[in-house]
């Protein structure tokens, strides 16, 4: 990029505080899903719709507790019947008070994370104050909707979003469908291939106003059980020392749990299970 006068816009076409709109104007090719080949009826070139083989992320969970929310994800990405990655990180920080986790096509999902991170930071810098949590959740909804053409070709991204709402003084969490539909959940949410199993275990163990400790352990248990039933979900791996990613968002902001901490809890969980 050569140094050139900074971009300016006529009043009618000014993108405002949105980075997504800005990118659409100055560099549309950089948008996720740009240059997506249009499939004809036979799906020549890419295979039939829904059969593109790319790495897929699997189970993620989000649980509310007394002081905020926790978010956890297994580490496996699969490509058909093959394990594409054992160490993928599906839980990411969006800004100081929110986090997002992705299930579905890993590539577009991670691109969406990066776009949302930039979007939130961009808004905050231009406007001088951050978006409300609801505003952030709606922004993600629009991005998922923009991904719909890619989703129709099998590149589905279904994230979970959570954060601490400073105005309400509580943690909140949202799940999404492939069309960008946003559903706020009161207690917990799961998504991905192992989500049914994870959800059932959380349902059985959930209590209102749990401590952070309890919520983290419940999340790890749910992921362990999902991995037990679902081949695409990775369980704790003491041989390679790979354990789920766990993050907490409370009044003080986003914190990712230390790897040692998660390892300790996972080993305890495994021990507890083998004793039964």
């Amino acid at each position: 990029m050569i140094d050139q006068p900074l971009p300016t816009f006529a009043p009618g076409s000014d993108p405002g505080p949105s980075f997504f709109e800005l990118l659409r104007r100055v560099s549309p090719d950089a948008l996720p899903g740009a240059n997506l080949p249009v499939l004809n009826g036979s799906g020549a070139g890419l295979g039939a719709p829904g059969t593109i083989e790319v790495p897929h992320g699997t189970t993620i969970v989000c649980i509310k507790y007394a002081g905020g929310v926790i978010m956890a994800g297994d580490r496996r990405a699969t490509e058909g019947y093959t394990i594409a990655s054992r160490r993928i990180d599906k839980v990411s920080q969006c800004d100081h008070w929110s986090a997002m986790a992705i299930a579905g096509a890993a590539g577009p999902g991670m691109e969406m994370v990066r776009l949302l991170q930039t979007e939130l930071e961009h808004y905050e810098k231009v406007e001088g104050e951050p978006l409300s949590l609801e505003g952030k959740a709606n922004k993600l909804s629009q991005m998922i909707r923009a991904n719909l053409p890619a989703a129709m070709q099998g590149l589905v991204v279904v994230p979970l979003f959570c954060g601490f709402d400073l105005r309400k003084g509580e943690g909140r969490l949202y799940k999404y469908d492939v069309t960008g539909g946003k559903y706020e959940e009161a207690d917990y949410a799961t998504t991905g291939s192992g989500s049914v199993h994870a959800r059932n275990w959380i349902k059985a163990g959930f209590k209102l106003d749990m401590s952070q400790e309890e919520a983290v352990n419940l999340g790890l248990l749910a992921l362990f059980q999902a991995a037990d039933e679902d081949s695409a979900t990775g369980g704790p791996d003491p041989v390679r020392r790979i354990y789920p990613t766990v993050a907490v968002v409370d009044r003080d902001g986003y914190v990712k749990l230390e790897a040692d901490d998660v390892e300790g809890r996972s080993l305890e969980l495994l021990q507890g299970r083998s004793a039964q």
Partner: protein
Amino acid sequence: MSMPFYVSPEQVMKDRADYARKGIARGRSLVALEYAGGIALVAENPSGTLHKISEIYDRIAFAAVGKYNEFEMLKIAGIRHADVRGYSYSREDVTARALANGYAQTLGQVFTHEMKPYEVEILVAQIGEQEGEPNEMFHILYDGTVMDEHGFTVLGGQAEAISDSLKADYTEGLDVGAAIRLGTKALGSPDDREIAADQLEVAVLDRTRPRRKFRRIDDDEVAGLLANA
């Protein structure tokens, strides 16, 4: 057909420069100082919401004096430039130098081609990520002139008097409180005033912070630092 009077290019440029300088001199000044852990930006600004100092990117801050609507627009253009660049390449590829060049081009073009020059002076500051990595401060004038500054720099109509005061007192390796006290004292020095914390806008680029190094220091904290002499 009537012919316009001939005005020499020298005269045109001089008139424009005078116009811009006069506009800038109407507002209050701003100082930036390097201290041991980063860069402190101190502006005299009675408004708590209309900022003269802003975050541009992880390591880069923007500060300006002059006409608010003009530098606010430049600030947003800078944020846009930085975020697009960081998104298309990587976060490390966003540099104060490229941004300063962009501003210089924009201001230079407006100065020569538009009816009215921008009545602004801006500063693009970037701190070195690691201990020992140098800071960068680019001071850009209304006509696109860029100056690479070290130690401290002053923006605004009273720059000379304030610089003189700073020259006498500034040393390298100050702590953050001392840097802010020194900046505040210098801002008040031309007409011997004491500036209260609520009349100041203060922010730092703090090397010890994780990714986004920019931090605003609120009035209470500034008052504490000023009292702590």
